[in-house]
C-alpha cells in the first residue's frame, strides 16, 4: 500500500464525510491483525487505489453498489446483461418505473454516482463471458450478486485459472452472495487457497424435475399440467417458434392450455402466477434478505480492502423464517474439485451403462451438474455436442457401452462450452 498525503485527497470529500467509517480505520480493535496500518495509508488505498468489480446489478447488486459507495470505494465497475422489469421494483431500489426496459448496469451506475459524490461507477451492459482475463486482472476484488449458477461457475473458474503463483496480484478475492426468499448466504473465496464455488456445488438445492412420463401420462399436480403445456404442447403447436417467458401472451397461452388439461384430469390449482413461476423458475425475492446478504458481502470487501478486521472464513449462511438463524463455518476445499482441486474424480458405474446413460448422470449428479457435456479420452473422441459435424460423427457412440470405449481405471475428460474448465474422471466398473 502506498502512503499519500492524506486519505481524503479527493476533491469531492468534505470534512466529516467519513466520520463513521474512519472510527474503525483510525484505530485497531482487539481482534484486528497487527499488520493493519491504521490511518491515512489504508484510507488512501480504499479511496484512491482500490478497484472493485460488482457482478450483477439486480437485487443484490443495487444494494452492493450503494454500500460500497458509502464505505469509501471510489472506483467501482459493474457488469449486468439484464434490463429492468417491473417485478424488480419491489427490491432493486436504484430503479424507478420510468426505468423499466433500460439496462440495469447503466441505470444503477448513474444513480449511485448522482447520490454519492465523487464515486466513479463504470457500467458494462453485457455478459461476464464477454470479458477476458486481462479485464478481470485490473481489479483488487470481485463481488458477485448473481442468481445464475452457470455465471457463478464461470467467474469462479476464471478467477481460479487466473492465479499465477509467481504473481500475488493475480489472486483476486471473490465474495459471493445469494438469496432465496428469507434465506441466503455470503462467502469469501480466495481462489486456489480456500474452497471455491465449484467445491460446494452439491450444497445447492436440487431443482424439482418432473419425469416426462408423469407429465405426459399421469399428472397429479398443477405443476405437471403447466410442464405439459410448456414442454410438450408448445413445441407441438408452435413447432420451432421459441417460447419467450417474458412475453405475457406466451405465459397466458401456457396458462390456458395448462388450465384445460387440469380440468380434464380434475386437478386444482393452476393459476397465472403459478404458471409464470414454474416456466420462469421464479425464486421469491425480497428487499430485506437482499439487504442482509449484500451488506455481509460489502462488509467482507471492506475488511479485505482495509485489513481493519479479519475477513470471513469462509461461509455465512442465514435462515430467516423462524427468528434469525445463522451459521458461520469453514467450507472445506474438495480435492477432486474440477476447478481448484487438481485430483481426478473417481466414479464407479455399471459395465452395462451406455454413454447416453453416463451423460444423464453427469447432468444430474449434484457435485457435477454439467449440462450438455462433451466426452473424450486421451486417445479418442467419445461424444461431442458441437460442432454439428463432430456431433453427428460421434453420435453413434451414445448407444455404445462406456466399457467398450474406456478401459477399467481409464480416464475421461468432460468439457462443456459454458464452463471454462474440464473435469477429469477415472472410470471404474462395478
Amino acid at each position, binding site marked *: 500500500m502506498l502512503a499519500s498525503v492524506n486519505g481524503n485527497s479527493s476533491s469531492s470529500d468534505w470534512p466529516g464525510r467519513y466520520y*463513521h467509517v474512519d472510527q474503525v480505520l483510525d484505530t485497531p480493535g482487539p*481482534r484486528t491483525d497487527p499488520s493493519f496500518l491504521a490511518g491515512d495509508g489504508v484510507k488512501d488505498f480504499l479511496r484512491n487505489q482500490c478497484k472493485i468489480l460488482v457482478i450483477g446489478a439486480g437485487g443484490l447488486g443495487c444494494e452492493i453498489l450503494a*454500500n460500497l459507495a458509502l464505505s469509501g470505494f471510489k472506483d467501482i465497475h459493474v457488469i449486468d446483461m439484464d434490463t429492468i422489469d417491473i417485478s424488480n421494483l419491489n427490491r432493486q431500489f436504484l430503479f424507478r418505473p420510468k426505468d423499466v426496459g433500460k439496462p440495469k448496469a447503466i441505470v444503477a451506475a448513474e444513480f449511485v454516482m448522482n447520490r454519492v459524490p465523487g464515486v466513479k461507477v463504470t457500467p458494462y451492459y453485457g455478459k461476464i463471458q464477454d470479458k477476458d482475463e486481462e479485464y478481470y486482472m485490473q481489479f483488487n476484488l470481485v463481488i458477485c450478486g448473481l442468481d445464475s449458477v452457470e455465471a457463478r461457475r464461470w467467474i469462479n473458474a476464471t478467477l481460479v485459472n487466473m492465479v499465477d503463483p509467481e504473481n500475488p496480484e493475480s489472486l483476486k478475492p471473490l465474495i459471493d452472495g445469494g438469496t432465496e*426468499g428469507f434465506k441466503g448466504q455470503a462467502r469469501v473465496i480466495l481462489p486456489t487457497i480456500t474452497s471455491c464455488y465449484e467445491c460446494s456445488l452439491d450444497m445447492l438445492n436440487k431443482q424439482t424435475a418432473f419425469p416426462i412420463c408423469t407429465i405426459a*401420462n399421469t399428472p397429479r399436480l398443477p405443476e405437471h399440467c403447466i410442464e405439459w403445456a410448456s414442454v410438450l404442447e408448445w413445441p407441438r403447436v408452435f413447432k420451432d417458434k421459441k417460447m419467450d417467458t417474458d412475453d405475457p401472451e406466451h405465459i397466458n397461452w401456457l396458462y*390456458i392450455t395448462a388450465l384445460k388439461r387440469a380440468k380434464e384430469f380434475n386437478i386444482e390449482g393452476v393459476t397465472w402466477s403459478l404458471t409464470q*413461476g414454474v416456466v420462469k423458475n421464479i*425464486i421469491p425475492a*425480497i*428487499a430485506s434478505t437482499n439487504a442482509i446478504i449484500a451488506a455481509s458481502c460489502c462488509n467482507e470487501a471492506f475488511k479485505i480492502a482495509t485489513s481493519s478486521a479479519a475477513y470471513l472464513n469462509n461461509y455465512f449462511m442465514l435462515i430467516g423464517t423462524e427468528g434469525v438463524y445463522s451459521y458461520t463455518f469453514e467450507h472445506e476445499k474438495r480435492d477432486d474439485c474440477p476447478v481448484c482441486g487438481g485430483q481426478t474424480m473417481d466414479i464407479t458405474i455399471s459395465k452395462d451403462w451406455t454413454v447416453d446413460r453416463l451423460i444423464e448422470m453427469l447432468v444430474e449428479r449434484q457435485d457435477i451438474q454439467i449440462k450438455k457435456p462433451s466426452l473424450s479420452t486421451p486417445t479418442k473422441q467419445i461424444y461431442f455436442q458441437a460442432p454439428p459435424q463432430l456431433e453427428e460423427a460421434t453420435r453413434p457412440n451414445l448407444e455404445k457401452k462406456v466399457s467398450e470405449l474406456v478401459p477399467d481405471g481409464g480416464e475421461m475428460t468432460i468439457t462443456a462450452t459454458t464452463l471454462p474448465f474440464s473435469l477429469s474422471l477415472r472410470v471404474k466398473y462395478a
Partner: protein
Amino acid sequence: MATESQDIETVTTNVATGQPDNKTRRYDRQLRLWAATGQNALESSRVLAIGATATATSVLKNLVLPGIGHFTVLDHRTVTPEDAGNNFFFEGQKSIGKRRADEAVRLLGELNDSVEGKADQANIEEVLSNNPEYLLQFNLVIAHNLDAVLLDKLAKFLWSDPSYPTLMVVRSAGFLAEFFIQFHEHTVIESHSEAMPSLRIDKPFPELYEHAMSLDLDNMDPMDHAHIPYVVILIRALEDWKKAHGGNPPKTYAEKQQFKKGIQAMKKKHDEENFDEAEAQAYRAWTETTVPSEISSLFQDPALSSLSPSSPPFFHLLSALHKFTLQPPHTLPLTSTLPDMRSDTKNYIHLQTLYKRRAEEEKKVFKSFISKDVQIDEELVDSFVKNAHAILVMRGKRWGEFDEDSAALANSLVISPRETATHLALSANSSQSLKSAAPPTAESLKAQVQSIVGSGVELPEEQLDAAVGEVARAPTSDLPNVAAFLGGMVAQEAIKMITKQYVPQKGYLVIDMIDMWTGPTGL
C-alpha cells in the same frame, strides 16, 4: 390459415385471462412468500422511525419497497456533514443543513409511490413529555441508538398497555449491533413451518380405510399395482401387521425393520417405486397421530381461561381447537393438502378427494365449537384449520427488563457468553454516553458492564474484551454496511410482526460483523 401469433391471440381472447395487474407484477416476488393476506396487512400498517440515522433509513427503505401503508420520520435535527457521508437517503453535501426528516422522507418516498411518508420535526423528548399519545397512531415504532433515558421512557410508555404499538429497539457501534422487539403477545397462524401435518395413516377415517381395504392388490393389473399411492400401501401394511401382532403397530427397532421388509415383500416387480416410497414413509404408520405437544400446551394459555367476545379471534379459534381435540379421535382437524406421491392421476385424485371431503366435514365440526357470540372471517377459519399443526403464541418482554435482572444476566453469560457480553457492551456504551462527553474506553465500559450485572457476577473475559474493545474503538460509528445489515434484519422482523406470518425473533438478536455471527440472548 392462421399464423402462430394469431393462434395465441384467438385462444387467449376467448378465455378470461388471469393476467396480473401492475401492482401484482411489481410485488410478484414477495407475494410468493406472504400472499395477498400478508400484503394487505403491510399496506394497512403505519410505522414510525425515531431519528433518521443511516440504520433507521435502511430499515425504512426495506419497508417502503415492499409497500407498507405509511411511515413517519420523527427527527428535529438537521443534516450534519457526518450524516451526509454515511446515509444513502441524504444527497451528499446538498443535504447538509437541511432537515433530516424532510430529506429522508423525500428520498425514501421515491422508492414507492403507493406508500405515504411524513416528516415530523418534533423532538422525541418533547413528544414523550407532552404528548406521548402521538405514538399511538402507529403500529410499530423503530428507535435506533436513541438516548438511553429517552429510550427507557419510550419503552415504558409503549409497554404500559398491551394494545400500544410494538417497539423495535436497535443499537449499534462499529461492527457490533443488536435489536430487540418489545411486544406483549404475538400470535401466528401462518408460521410457514416445514413440519408436515399427519396423514392419519394410523387412524384412517372410515372412507379412507374402506378405500384402502377395497383394493384387490393381488389380482391387480401390474401397471395399476405400480401406481398405488403410499398412503394406501401403508394402511394395508399396517392393518396386516396389527392382525398378526395383537392389534399393535410396530414398536421396537427390530419390528420397524421387519415392517419395512413386509412393505418390500408386497412388491410384484422390483422396480415398483411406490413401494420404495412407502418404505421411506413407513414412520407415518407407526407414529401415533396425536395433538403435538407444542399445540396442546397452548390450550393452557391464560387467554383461554379469560375468553370473552372481545378476545382476539385467534383465541376463539384456539378454544374451538381445544374442544375439537377432546373428541375422538383426539387429533387436530384433518388438513386437505395431500403431498405428492408416486401414483397415477386416477388414484391420486381419488385419494385427494377423500382427504378434501373429510377435511371439509371436520372443519364443520370445528366450526360448531366456535363461540356463537363471535363473528370470525371465513378465510381466517380456513387458514387456522389448515395451519393448526403449526400455530404459535409468543409472549414478549419489556425492553430493559433483562438488564435489571442480575440472575438472568448471570445465567445468559454462561449459556451464550459472546452474545450476552456484546449486548452488555452496547448497554454500557449507551449508559456511559449519558455520564460524560469523553469517549468511552475499554476499561470504562468494562466497569460499566460490571455495574449492570452486579459485582458478584463473573464476566467471560475473552468475549467481553472482544466486545468492549470494539465498542471503544467506534462508539458512535454507524457503519454503512452494519446499517445496511440491520436495515435488512430489522425490516424483516417488522414484516413478520405486521403480517403475523413466519416467526419473529425473541429476546435480543446480537450481531458481530467481525467474526460474522448472529445469535440470541435474553430469551
